């Protein structure tokens, strides 16, 4: 009996001692934190005082994780605008130039994190003008947060139609939505002399690829092309060979695939290994991204991709006075690589704000939102004009084909740089 009582007391004593110790350490930590933070707080106060003539935008981007390749292109596009507008002195609003600054956070290619970071941008950083994240999957939840706080978000990389079909008032997109992705390729196919009759559709189980291929299925049926195979594979897959073996058995004339770059490189490699030989081979994403052709070499030949933009398009903006090809040239000088459509599409989102802010000044988010809704401008990325859902109805998509390792615009005919190679010759 005595022993247990003694033990109990000893235990209590031990616990109390620990609690006291923790308290002591905690109060020490608090005082240190206070000492360390004081200069920081002073600094931030002084910087907000100075920040009067700065316009701040905020964006959560996939800077690491599986969409880091694309996320970096988006950031470079945003930064391109920031660099050049600041070189000109800033955005002239009501006679006074305002420098531009973007607050970035890395969402690690995770949609949930993107939504959380957008909330942080609004609540903690007091950002009143939002830019979009990368990918439809991230834009979908992120735009809900923007809508909740009634802060406008001009996004450049969420092409899923579902983003715009929720009756939201505060989300706008510079790009063509996903339902228009497969249209170019399939219309082009239907217009050929010996049109393809069957099609197989493969996609990653993610928002954008799924909607793109669903759109492709509908469009193909409308054009009388027979859908012989349609399947999705899980994100992060490293082996598609057995799926492609099934595709080979179905022997489709057209093979369309939707997914992000990593999977598309894998898909092209394994399609060749498995002996899949479609007459027409299109990917929703990849061929124009840096590194794609290098990784695949001659296996990338003749692949098709619907594109939002290419450097030879006859568009010119009135802020910088640059055409699409000027943009490509200057961008390459700044960042060391030739841009695909991602950077101009991102920079165009800032041009939308540029015009809206010039019109109404640094007004509250609601007023700026209304100015954005009235946008009707021409940029190096193409015309931008929003419908009531926030989708850009000003421009349409083109199609490129990789020929000798270079993307060549083959559709529509009025801006084509070369002729489509059809059917694909094997072996090449």
């Amino acid at each position, binding site marked *: 009996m005595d022993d247990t009582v003694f033990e109990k007391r000893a235990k209590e004593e031990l616990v109390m001692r620990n609690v006291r110790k923790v308290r002591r350490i905690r109060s020490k930590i608090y005082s240190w934190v206070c000492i360390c933070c004081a200069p920081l707080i002073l600094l931030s106060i002084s910087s907000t005082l100075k920040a009067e003539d700065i316009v701040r935008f905020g964006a959560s981007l996939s800077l*690491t994780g599986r969409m*880091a390749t694309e996320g*970096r292109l988006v950031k470079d596009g945003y930064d391109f605008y920031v660099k050049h507008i600041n070189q000109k002195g800033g955005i002239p609003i009501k006679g006074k130039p305002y420098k531009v600054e973007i607050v970035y956070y890395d969402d690690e290619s995770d949609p949930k994190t993107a939504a959380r970071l957008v909330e942080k941008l609004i609540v903690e950083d007091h950002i009143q003008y939002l830019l979009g994240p990368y990918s439809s999957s991230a834009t979908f939840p992120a735009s809900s947060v923007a809508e909740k706080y009634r802060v406008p978000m001009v996004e450049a990389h969420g092409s899923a139609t579902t983003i715009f079909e929720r009756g939201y008032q505060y989300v706008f997109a510079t790009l063509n939505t996903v339902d228009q992705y497969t249209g170019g390729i399939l219309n082009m196919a239907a217009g050929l002399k010996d049109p393809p009759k069957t099609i197989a559709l493969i996609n990653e189980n993610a928002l954008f690829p799924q909607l793109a291929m669903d759109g492709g299925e509908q469009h193909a049926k409308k054009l009388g092309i027979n859908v012989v195979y349609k399947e999705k594979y899980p994100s992060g897959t490293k082996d598609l060979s*057995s799926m492609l073996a099934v595709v080979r058995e179905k022997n489709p004339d057209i093979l369309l695939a939707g997914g992000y770059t990593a999977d598309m490189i894998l898909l092209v490699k394994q399609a060749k290994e498995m002996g899949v030989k479609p007459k027409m081979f299109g990917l929703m994403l990849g061929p124009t991204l840096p590194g794609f052709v290098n990784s695949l070499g001659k296996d990338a030949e003749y692949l098709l991709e619907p594109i939002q933009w290419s450097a030879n398009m006859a568009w010119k903006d009135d802020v910088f006075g640059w055409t699409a090809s000027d943009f490509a040239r200057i961008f390459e000088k700044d960042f060391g690589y030739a841009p695909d459509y991602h950077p101009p599409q991102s920079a165009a989102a800032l041009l939308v704000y540029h015009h809206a802010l010039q019109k109404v000044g640094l007004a509250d988010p609601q007023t700026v939102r209304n100015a954005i809704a009235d946008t009707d401008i021409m940029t190096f990325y193409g015309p931008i004009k929003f419908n009531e859902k926030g989708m850009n109805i000003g421009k349409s998509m083109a199609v490129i084909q990789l020929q000798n390792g270079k993307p060549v615009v083959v559709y529509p005919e009025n801006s084509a740089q070369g002729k489509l190679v059809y059917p694909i010759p094997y072996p090449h």
Partner: protein
Amino acid sequence: MTLFWQVLINGILSGGLYACAAIGFSVIWGVMNLINLAHGSMIILGAYITYMTTSTFGIDPFLTLPVSGCALFILGFLIQKYLINHVIGGSIFMTLILTFGLDLLLINAYLLIFSADLCAITPWYAGLGWEWGNVKIPYTRVGAFVFAIGLTLLLSLFMNRTKLGNAIRATSFDKDAASLAGVDVFKVYAITFGIGAGMAGMAGTLMSVIYSFSPVTGEIFTMKAFVIVVLGGLGSMPGAIVGGIILGLAENFASVLLSPGYKDAVSFFLLVIILVLRPRGILGKRFYAEVRD
């Protein structure tokens, strides 16, 4: 029928590579009771070493196996000697945290050095292969399979037939007894981690020939290694081969018979079944899997 043979061959070929990717993980776990969360990142480092050597010197990717193996062995040896050995006596959470931190460190270092761009190695014979009726057997996959199985068997021989291998196994059974018998336990640990990392590096080389990779692809391999090790049995070399091939077959048949969307579901379902029916793994011996403090 063609499709059946094609899928069977695909499954076995990718299974061999899975085995090689998992074996280093299995050895480290089995010997030191250390779960190396940075294993996938080490595989990716091997892939990058192959990428750099092939693109600089223009040699065949399979010839870079010794380069990536040695480089990763040295790295692994140093990591164990100067980092992990300091916490290995403590709780398992310390080693988990340490290897997780190492994983983050490696990934971000790759992002800085190699950028986030995807890499793939395309040797001249990529896409070519034997044709047997309508069944295609690509050279690259056969090459990767042969080397993967070869390396795994070599490691198995090393563990069973050499003095050092016996010392490693002895340490895994009972580190105090081994230490009494004159084994320098911490040195053995460093060598074991080096071997595990070296195997990861060589698996990376083989992987780079078949798949595309970027700094963040590693985590998939860590996950697969987990499944394979539990399927085959902890610390067992033949178990890794069996586990790898079972996983490869399950994934490939699931993607054809059900839908490609279900392949991960099927492989993890398999994992659950094995855990319920035979927790020590198909070829696992009880002793390896016992948790020691």
